[in-house]
């Protein structure tokens, strides 16, 4: 049953990323296409510490999360100055720069070859070798992430972010600091992405730049929207569905020569149909 | 009859906001369409314009049932609406606002052509090259009104036209509306909270309360009636 385990573990990791993306893009309206870059930094940091046996998993994860908080704030800072569409440029730029670093900084990241042989996570000195243990860890991470997300969204902070998405000027006129709220949101999103990165690196035991590229950032967006942007349930359902979809599509029997293209085609058609008939996503409310 | 509503019922989704609204207006007639906030005035106007699909009833314009026509077709017939609040193209200059609307709506012998507009509101001529969205609230409202009347409106529906306008302009604008209605047999529906000003030029007053017509009569009757209590 390892398959289910690895599916659940991977989906849990993507839920954390979904939360991160949802928080920034869906709720605060900061259109970031560089969440995969932050995710990657988290993954590489944890991989670095574990492979050099500098420290055990949890402290490494904590450091990764902290670095990603700092990084995401830095990355999102332009959004404080550059509003709306204009942030897309900086965000693209950051993502492309990150990909260049992951691919070409061979000493730090293993370059395009990636880093194989990352040790499994350990808790209290015991390595988590079995799939059951690893999946529990990932699910626990996801559970914690969801709880935090839920708490934050029902608190005034959530409302403030939604207000910022609509009208920053009016938020300022209500006496709130837009800057502080955005920095907080970026920090939280960074923590989610960094944690997800650490879990991902130890779960796969191998990372390479292809998991942290622009396509991945876009996949995250798709997950969030298909699940239902701005909702907690959406950030959970989206990753679980979209990760299963390629696997499900391989069950569709198609004549060999065009099978691959046909599957992607079906994927595209499903996306379109889904957006047409359920624009609010799986878990969203009708507007 | 220019405009006739017959047992109109309309709303949003499952929520019915106005029901059983019936009245008919002759050419040249000016209706003051009054009611408290949230009574359903805007909803009624949107239904006439075709922006909302009524759930029941019919809308006749010049004897023709326009209930199934598109918005554009209704505009072409001469049904015009000054919308509440967002009546200009903020990112275009004043001159572009006027010319782009004129290009689609002003034909030969039109009632209002571009020069008429600038005569009506000289300040717009002065600010021709200003981005419309950066003008003051009142200036924007003048422009909005201009866009609504360009061409040949035959039934002009004004949703709170006086908002943001200084008193001098309100009076003048209402007088203009009355003059045009009388000289060109144009019908006007005037949704106003500035009741006194509206009643001064109206031939007829309808008061709406919670989606239903509760008073229909001429201004003198309205002044005399106790329907003022609805305000």
């Amino acid at each position, binding site marked *: 049953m390892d398959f289910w385990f690895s599916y659940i573990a991977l989906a849990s990791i993507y839920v954390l990323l979904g939360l991160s993306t949802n928080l920034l893009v869906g709720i605060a309206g900061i259109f970031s296409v560089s969440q995969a870059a932050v995710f990657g930094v988290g993954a590489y940091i944890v991989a670095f510490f574990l492979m050099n046996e500098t420290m055990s998993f949890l402290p490494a994860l904590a450091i990764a999360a902290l670095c990603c908080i700092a990084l995401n704030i830095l990355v999102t800072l332009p959004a404080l100055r550059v509003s709306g569409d204009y942030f897309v440029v900086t965000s693209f730029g950051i993502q492309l720069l990150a990909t260049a670093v992951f691919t070409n900084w061979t000493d730090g990241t293993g370059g*395009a070859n990636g880093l194989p042989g990352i040790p499994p996570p350990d808790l209290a000195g015991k390595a988590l070798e079995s799939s059951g243990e690893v999946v529990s860890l990932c699910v626990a991470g996801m559970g914690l992430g969801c709880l935090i997300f839920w708490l934050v969204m029902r608190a005034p902070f959530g409302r403030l972010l939604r207000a910022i998405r609509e009208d920053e000027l009016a938020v300022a006129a209500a006496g709130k600091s837009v800057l502080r709220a955005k920095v907080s949101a970026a920090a939280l999103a960074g923590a989610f992405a960094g944690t997800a990165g650490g879990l991902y690196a130890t779960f796969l035991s191998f990372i390479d730049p292809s998991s942290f590229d622009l396509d991945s950032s876009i996949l995250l967006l798709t997950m969030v929207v298909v699940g239902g942007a701005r909702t907690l349930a959406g950030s959970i359902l989206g990753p679980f569905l979209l990760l299963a979809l390629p*696997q499900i599509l391989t069950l569709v029997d198609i004549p060999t020569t065009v099978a*691959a293209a046909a599957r992607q085609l079906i994927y595209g058609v499903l996306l379109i149909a889904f957006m047409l008939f359920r624009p609010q996503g799986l878990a969203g409310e009708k507007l | 009859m220019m405009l006739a509503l017959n047992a109109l019922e309309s709303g949003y989704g499952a929520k019915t906001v106005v029901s059983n609204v019936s009245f008919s207006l002759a050419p040249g007639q000016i209706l003051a369409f009054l009611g408290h906030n949230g009574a359903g005035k805007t909803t009624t106007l949107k239904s006439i314009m075709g922006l909302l699909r009524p759930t029941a009833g019919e809308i006749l314009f010049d004897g023709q049932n326009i209930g199934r026509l598109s918005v554009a077709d209704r505009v072409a017939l001469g049904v015009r609406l000054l919308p509440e609040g967002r009546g200009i193209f903020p990112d275009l200059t004043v001159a572009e606002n006027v010319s782009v609307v004129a290009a689609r709506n002003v034909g030969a012998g039109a009632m209002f052509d571009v020069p008429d507009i600038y005569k009506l509101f000289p300040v717009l001529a002065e600010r021709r090259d200003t981005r419309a969205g950066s003008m003051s609230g009142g200036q924007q409202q003048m422009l909005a009104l201009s866009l609504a009347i360009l061409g040949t409106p035959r039934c002009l529906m004004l949703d709170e036209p006086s908002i943001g306008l200084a008193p001098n302009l309100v009076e003048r604008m209402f007088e203009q509306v009355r003059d045009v209605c009388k000289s060109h047999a144009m019908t006007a529906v005037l949704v106003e909270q500035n009741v006194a000003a509206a009643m001064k030029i109206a031939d007829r007053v309808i008061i709406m309360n919670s989606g239903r017509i509760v008073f229909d009569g001429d201004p003198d009757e309205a002044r005399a009636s106790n329907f003022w209590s609805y305000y």
Partner: protein
Amino acid sequence: HADTIRFGAILPLTGPGAGIGTQQMRGIQFAVEKANAAGGVHGNTIEILFEDNQAKPDQSILSFNKLADLQHVPMIFSAYSGPSLAMAPLATRKKILLVNAGAQADKLATASPYLVNTLPTIGDEIKVISKYLAGEGKKQAAILFENDAAGIAGRDDYQKYFPEAGGTILAQEPTQFGQTDFRPALLKLADAKPEVMLVSITAAALQMAQQYKQLGLNFAVAGTTFLQDPTLVADPSSEGIVHTQVRIDAPPELAAEFKAKFGVEMEFFVRQYYNATQIILAVTDRLLTEGKPITGESMHDMLFTIGKFQGLIPLEFKTNTATVPLDINVMKGGKDVTIKQMSSD
């Protein structure tokens, strides 16, 4: 007891890697369908379960686990370095034989005892071409490489082995995978005035050669098996390109049969995976003959017990990476002409 024996294949069937992935899939299909048509292996039908990993490591892991746990396959074909390296630890842990007949990263040689490669690593090829070029007196080189795992591996090997053979590297310049604009890189390399350009790209070699010609460049061009591309060979711009070539020829009848069936030429990766599939079929056959179970472990052991295989080419497993014949070819008058025969060790 006519049974179905299932194996897996995890290949990039969509995305930018799909061109090669599809070739690989066809090679496997072709071999299996021929075997089944001939009565199967000891009367057993062979079935291959294909999974699309989009050349991504994480999708590969999912697919691997799916094949291993839900379908219980003992053997999986893989391709591309990243995915193969990602799956290698799982192969070790679950004792599933992973057969790579496409990727050539050097790390693949030692990634897992259960990962076997039916073609030499890129380093093996580059050692050979470096020696050859040095022997020809071409000692000033510039490197053109694709900025991804396969291309960078090649660049690193050039940097290591070309100087060892006595040459000097003057410059290096990357291109992006999937991009076909080579002009800026070519221009910059030309500026270093090399005698030879060492190429490490996996796609669009034709476009590279055409742009090289249009820019009027005149240094020599050399590379590895990656340059083997029928459309390139046929194009006049390829005149004089030298490259190592993992020899894997298809007999004309076989190539014709393939073309009749799929409507395209039997290209390099088709042949590679056809050949690899035949190796697997041979291993399965021996296991069944000896009445042994078909597990990842038994297949692994049997592969090394047999050691030498005679498919499209003679090939021998001394380590996890097969020793195969390796030629040096030069493109001339629309043909790829072998000028020297060697072996990958």
